[in-house]
């Protein structure tokens, strides 16, 4: 075996420097199996890359270890370059060496040397793949069937690539399917989304794998092997025609998760009448047959004998070349917020519940009626920044969409209840999208009263929800006996996002949002080549931004596929 090349980057970052390359080379002097290159410009520069090529070519090297400070940024570029030079990228490695303020901290130096030596040994152990190269699979998997995943899938499908769209729920559409109308145009969410979901369902290049979760992922770019668990639906989707009779006749009535607990759902359900695919599933936790051992009404009424109580989870394995992760968000649980009643005050609901309340397909058919007694609320208090921007107790970040959707809620409420009164407690109003500020102003014109301050307590009193808040503009405390309170709770990563990230070997931040390779220049790349991020899985954002990211991730995948 020939020698292994070692390249040290002399790059300087924010006044911090890497170890002096010459000192490091001095430390490697004892090893006869390495050939070091010292280049006095950053290796990621054009001259740096060129120098490495000349160095490898001149010495007949096929293996090289690179030590630089940002391997996640330079690594993919370097591997691409190796491929272009006709070398096998898997025989080279890019190591991360932390920059240090001191050029000669001896402990740090030893540690860095240790990392480099281990890297060299690891590279020496690698063997070139025998036989032909494994073929590059030009089909993509999109995890998460919300508006982001749908957007990315349609783009990829239109590009001619085969797409597998995996969703945890029985049908696609995600959070947007729960929304009533969207800002800043007040379009009906379902009217804008349904054509997209239908297009996805009927697209010749898109295959839906719904009610399924990712079990494990192995392999690398061009050849990921993904194992998927298809949860038991207890309904044979091949036989089912989606007539809906089973849902109509199902005797169980339980608070529906989709309706955010303010409306009833059935044990056998689809998420909406326009669900794609329009096939029901049985929730065994509430189904009378599964819990009490008798009922079987759905089985009796089904015209095609599609009900199958004995169904079990099945596993599918799929090979894909690239993966887009668009797992979306959840809302911070209002049950965890003490000062707002731990979710025990019945007329305190969260933003998504208000969306359901206002939605024509929701439990009240779009009439604003408060959950406790069905009365039309005359005074509604909306509270922004609930569990957002609260580093001490909840989430330190801004959830980005709440200023806008709260204004939207208040406006929609006033459009429906003309003599109603809407108050919004806010800290700042962040309306930086196109047409957003105008939207807020329109709301003020329509008579929404904005109160600058937080709410310290909510409690139920005599059928009202009493709100203790502040108006810092007058420096006074404000007490409002409201009929209903809507909390704009923080967006958090969707349940299980962290576990999924671990399976994919991609990073998450401390809150569980997936981390991009670099926040400005590589916003949809993960740290792993071939895996891309989009939408609220990466951080809170509104629909416009999330769709843009879905488009971006899809175009990245297409560029990747086009190279092979």
């Amino acid at each position, binding site marked *: 075996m020939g020698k292994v090349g070692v390249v040290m980057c002399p790059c300087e970052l924010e006044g911090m420097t890497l170890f002096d390359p010459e000192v490091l080379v001095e430390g490697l002097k004892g090893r006869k199996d390495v050939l070091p290159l010292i280049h006095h410009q950053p290796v990621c520069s054009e001259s740096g890359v060129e120098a490495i090529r000349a160095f490898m070519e001149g010495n007949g090297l096929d293996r090289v270890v690179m030590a630089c400070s940002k391997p996640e940024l330079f690594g993919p570029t370097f591997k691409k370059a190796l491929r272009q030079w006709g070398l096998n990228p898997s025989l080279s490695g890019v190591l991360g060496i932390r920059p240090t303020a001191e050029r000669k901290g001896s402990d740090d130096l030893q540690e860095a040397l240790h990392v480099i030596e281990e890297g060299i040994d690891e590279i020496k152990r690698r063997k070139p793949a025998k036989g032909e190269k494994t073929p590059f699979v030009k089909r993509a998997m999109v995890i998460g069937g919300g508006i982001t995943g749908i957007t990315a899938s349609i783009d990829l499908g239109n590009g001619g690539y085969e797409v597998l769209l995996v969703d945890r729920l029985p049908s696609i559409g995600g959070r947007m399917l729960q929304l009533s109308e969207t800002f800043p145009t007040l379009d009906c969410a379902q009217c804008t989304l349904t054509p997209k979901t239908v297009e996805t369902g009927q697209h010749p290049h898109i295959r839906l794998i719904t009610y399924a979760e990712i079990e494990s992922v192995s392999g690398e770019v061009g050849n990921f092997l993904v194992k998927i668990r298809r949860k038991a639906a207890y309904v044979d989707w091949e036989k089912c025609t989606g007539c809906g009779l089973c849902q109509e006749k199902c005797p169980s009535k339980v608070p529906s998760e989709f309706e955010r607990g303010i409306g009833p759902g059935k044990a056998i359900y689809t998420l909406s009448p326009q669900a794609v695919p329009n096939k029901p599933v049985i929730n065994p936790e509430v189904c009378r047959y599964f819990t009490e051992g008798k009922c079987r009404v759905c089985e009796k009424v089904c015209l095609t004998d599609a009900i199958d109580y004995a169904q079990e989870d099945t596993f599918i394995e799929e090979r894909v070349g690239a993966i887009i992760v668009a797992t979306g968000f959840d809302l911070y649980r209002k049950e965890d917020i003490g000062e707002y009643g731990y979710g025990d005050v019945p007329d305190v609901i969260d933003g998504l519940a208000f969306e359901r309340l206002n939605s024509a397909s929701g439990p009240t058919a779009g009439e604003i009626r408060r959950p406790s007694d069905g009365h039309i609320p*005359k*005074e509604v208090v909306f509270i922004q920044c609930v569990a957002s921007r609260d580093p001490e107790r909840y989430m330190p970040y801004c959830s980005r969409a709440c200023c806008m959707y709260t204004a939207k809620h208040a406006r929609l409420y006033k459009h429906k209840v003309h003599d109603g*009164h809407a108050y919004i407690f806010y800290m700042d109003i962040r309306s930086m999208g196109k047409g957003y500020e105008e939207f807020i*102003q329109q709301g*003020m*014109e*329509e*008579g*929404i*009263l*904005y109160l*600058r301050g937080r709410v310290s307590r909510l409690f139920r009193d005599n059928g009202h929800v009493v709100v203790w808040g*502040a*108006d810092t*503009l*007058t*420096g*006074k*405390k*404000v*007490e*409002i006996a409201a009929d209903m309170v809507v909390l704009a709770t923080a967006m958090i990563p969707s349940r299980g996002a962290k576990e999924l990230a671990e399976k994919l070997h991609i990073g998450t931040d401390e809150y569980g949002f997936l981390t991009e390779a670099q926040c400005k220049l590589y916003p949809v790349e993960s740290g792993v080549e071939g895996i891309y991020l989009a939408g609220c899985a990466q951080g809170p954002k509104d629909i416009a931004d999330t769709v843009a990211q879905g488009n971006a991730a899809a175009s990245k995948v297409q560029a990747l596929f086009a190279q092979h």
Partner: protein
Amino acid sequence: MDKPMTTVELPDIEGRQTFLAEVQERCGENLGLCYQCLKCTVGCPTAPYMDFNPNTIVRLIQFGLKREVLESNAIWLCVSCETCGTRCPNEIDIGLLMDALREMSLEEGYRAKEKGVVALHNAFMESIRRGGRVHEATMLMEYKLRSGDYWTDLIPGMKLFMKGKIPLLPGRIKGIDSIREIYKKTQKQRKVLEDREGKSK
């Protein structure tokens, strides 16, 4: 906060809506648009002497706190310089608003916090009614009678008079009839105001 935070007692929705609607109707401004950016207040020459800043007045109207607004001295200390309205990002003309509030305050029998301002205003209007333009000597005399403040600025006034800066006899403009016509048309309202002034003394 250097002051203890007191609780503001919001009136019921109806009262609140009525007051807001009434004020908006009168001044023709949409007060819902207020950003509370405080541009009006920081530019206001008399805000330091007001009990409520101009932006707070808008806030109190939104809250429907009628008594607080109509009893405040802020509405009387406003000199209608229009700096606020010129600078407001939402084109709320606070000068017009203050005018409307002053009228409402008098009409509804609230005690004007700054009696002198009302007295001077009325003396000014009377002076114009008499001659078509202001005649300082008679106007000031009337003001002093109305306000009961006989001594303030007496010496500077005498000095001005000695230098011939204040003409002794009131003149009359040519178009006095037109002026009178205007007064006649607005007489009814004026009468009310006069009565109020009498009452609040």
